[in-house]
């Protein structure tokens, strides 16, 4: 067990209400659309931090760097020679049926060949202490701002905790992000594009812009002229943008290449990007690599591109697309978790154990009819973490979103977003499903 000075937690716990009040005041929220109505939700903070030992972090760090490097190689390969398909490692169907594959990006090489500049890799720790990868998020994952601001507030509420324990300072994220953006910069200022305050990650966009010294922009302030992206200044002039951080989905980014009805895009951004005049963080077309169907192949990619054994394990996964796996899935459906590859944010996740006999039968038919649509995984018995509920401490499921930044080098941020499920029976920890978050302390020794 981790060595932490007694009493520090309790102090933090005592201040939970105060911290949550501060978070509320700071506007630390996330937006969610339900039944077409936009609501801003408060993301509840739990004061008991998740603690990761220096030893554990060291192996997680190596494993994540390895994984993200392989994913970046994969993206380059898919949009160029496609060797991994020709060599029979990944079946062609999995690439071209994937909604994340964008033929429009064929042949485009982003600066320094980096596609996923900011990767959010979701992990869980099993009861035996082993860490497993649950999911890769390579399309600008959100969430880094929450542990940043929570840490800031905890420092105010419980300063002793940080003096008496060897906790790695997580304030380096801003510098790390700035470095990563600069490495993708094609000449010009840094800008963070937000669709506006009715966006799920608006708080995060404005916070990150402030931290990294980037300009927070909306699409109507931008235009492309002579294949260069410009920011319209208040005085009527223009400033060249060299790198654009965006969380808008690829298909809304340029109405002249993708969806013509998009009102949140920038016309001809694709032309500027293709010409190498602007870096886009993260690159377009990354969805092909974080597809739940492609997840199965990531350990194979690591061997294929890097010639290394994967350091971090995938959760045991089956693809009904393969005959053997289909048979296994049919025989063990009641103990598996089934994920719809097209869904995100905790939607489309079904636990076989939750289904009635009839529903199981029905679901079997759906899988047989559309084998490519699903993956099946063993349910990992993950470590419960303590959370405060009222006056008591209860145990709940939690995961960890680690942030991996690929600049000149690939680096893992020594912190992360620990999300937990408030429902004792649920394994789904996504913020959009009503979960909360904790700070993640990485110990320096």
């Amino acid at each position, binding site marked *: 067990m981790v060595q932490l000075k007694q009493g520090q937690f309790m102090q933090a716990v005592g201040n939970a209400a105060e911290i949550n009040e501060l978070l509320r005041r700071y506007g630390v929220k996330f937006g969610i659309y339900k039944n077409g109505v936009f609501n801003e939700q408060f993301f509840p903070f739990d004061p008991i931090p998740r603690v990761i030992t220096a030893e554990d972090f060291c192996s997680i760090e190596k494993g994540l760097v390895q994984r993200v490097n392989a994913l970046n190689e994969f993206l380059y390969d898919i949009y160029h020679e496609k060797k991994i*398909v020709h060599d029979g490692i990944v079946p062609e169907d999995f690439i071209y049926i994937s909604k994340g594959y964008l033929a429009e990006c*064929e042949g485009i090489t982003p600066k320094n060949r980096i596609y996923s500049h900011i990767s959010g890799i979701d992990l869980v720790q099993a009861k035996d202490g082993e860490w497993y990868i649950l999911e890769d998020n390579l399309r600008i994952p959100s969430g880094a701002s929450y542990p940043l601001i929570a840490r800031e507030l905890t420092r105010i509420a419980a300063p002793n905790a940080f003096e008496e324990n060897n906790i790695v300072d997580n304030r380096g994220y801003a510098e790390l992000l700035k470095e990563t953006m600069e490495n993708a910069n094609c000449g010009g200022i840094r800008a963070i594009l937000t669709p506006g305050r009715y966006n799920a990650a608006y708080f995060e966009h404005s916070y990150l812009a402030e931290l990294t010294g980037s300009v927070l922009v909306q699409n109507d302030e931008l*235009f*492309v002229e002579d294949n260069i992206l410009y920011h319209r200044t208040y005085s009527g002039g223009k400033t060249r943008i060299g790198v654009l951080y965006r969380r808008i989905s690829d298909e809304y980014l340029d*109405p002249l290449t993708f969806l013509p009805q998009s009102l949140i895009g920038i016309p001809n951004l694709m032309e500027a990007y293709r*010409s190498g005049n602007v870096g886009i963080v993260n690159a377009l077309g990354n969805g092909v690599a974080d597809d739940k169907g492609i997840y199965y192949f990531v350990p194979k990619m690591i061997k294929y591109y890097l010639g290394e054994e994967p350091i971090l394990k995938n959760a045991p996964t089956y693809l009904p697309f393969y005959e053997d796996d289909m048979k296994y899935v049919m025989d063990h459906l009641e103990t598996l978790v089934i994920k719809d590859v097209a869904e995100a944010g905790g939607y489309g996740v079904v636990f076989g154990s939750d289904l009635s006999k009839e529903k199981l039968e029905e679901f079997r038919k759906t899988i047989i009819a559309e084998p490519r649509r699903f993956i099946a995984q063993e349910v990992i018995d993950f470590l419960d973490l303590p959370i405060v509920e009222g006056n008591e401490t209860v145990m709940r499921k939690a995961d960890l979103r680690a942030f991996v930044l690929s600049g000149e080098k690939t680096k893992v941020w020594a912190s992360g977003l620990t999300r937990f499920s408030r429902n004792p029976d649920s394994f789904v920890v996504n913020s959009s499903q009503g979960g909360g978050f904790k700070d993640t302390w990485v110990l320096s020794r």
Partner: protein
Amino acid sequence: MKQVNFYYCAKLTFDDYVHNHSFALRVIPPETETQRLLSCSLNITPYVSTQQTVDAFGNNVTAGYLKGDHRFLDFEIKGAAQVDHTKHRTDYMPCYLYQSQYTKPDEALKEFYEEIKRECTGTIAERAEYLCAALANTVVYEKGHTDTDTTAAEAFVLKRGVCQDFSHILISLLRMDGIAARYIAGLAFCDGETHSWVEFWTGDHWEGIDPANNCLVNDDYIVISQGRDFRDCAIDRGVMFGSYTKQLQLVRSILS
């Protein structure tokens, strides 16, 4: 081999001033094994600075931005090309094997394919010609029923359409049959406007087939752009601001 002169012009007029107008034109024919450009000039008015790129599908893209108020955008392209269909293009992309936005079949189109596929045998070229003929026997060429948003499935229900619709349906059938196929926008002698046809992959190179005329493509065709379907080949796309009703008026296209 044949030397062909081409001319194409379009006039976009607006009933009110527009500004901050971004556009992307795909009008400069690509230089390929089959067609060599001897000359080519593009004229755009009002004057605007433009940039050229080549997109993922091999199309020449001319992009521009008109900031100030204007009421029209005209472009005119003319040139000469040497066309030789005994030489073949080999720029294959795997995405051409998969259904795309406009070609995704519905149940009716799938059923149609199921009905005719027993007879669909032989080499890839023979199968392509068979599918093209089957389509010509089922759908009638007739203007005024479909527009640029009409999908293959929608046109098939109407059993009527223009060259774009014939191309989409044939591409859908070819892909269902496991043959990679792409959409071609271009100019042809048999047509006074822009034309559209299909290329299928023989396993070695592309062959052109014209479903609206149920014939193979010869040296009387000039390719302007290619892609998965119409979406990748739109001659002009633009976004502009102002209170107006957009109007695209095709003036003429000539091959000689």
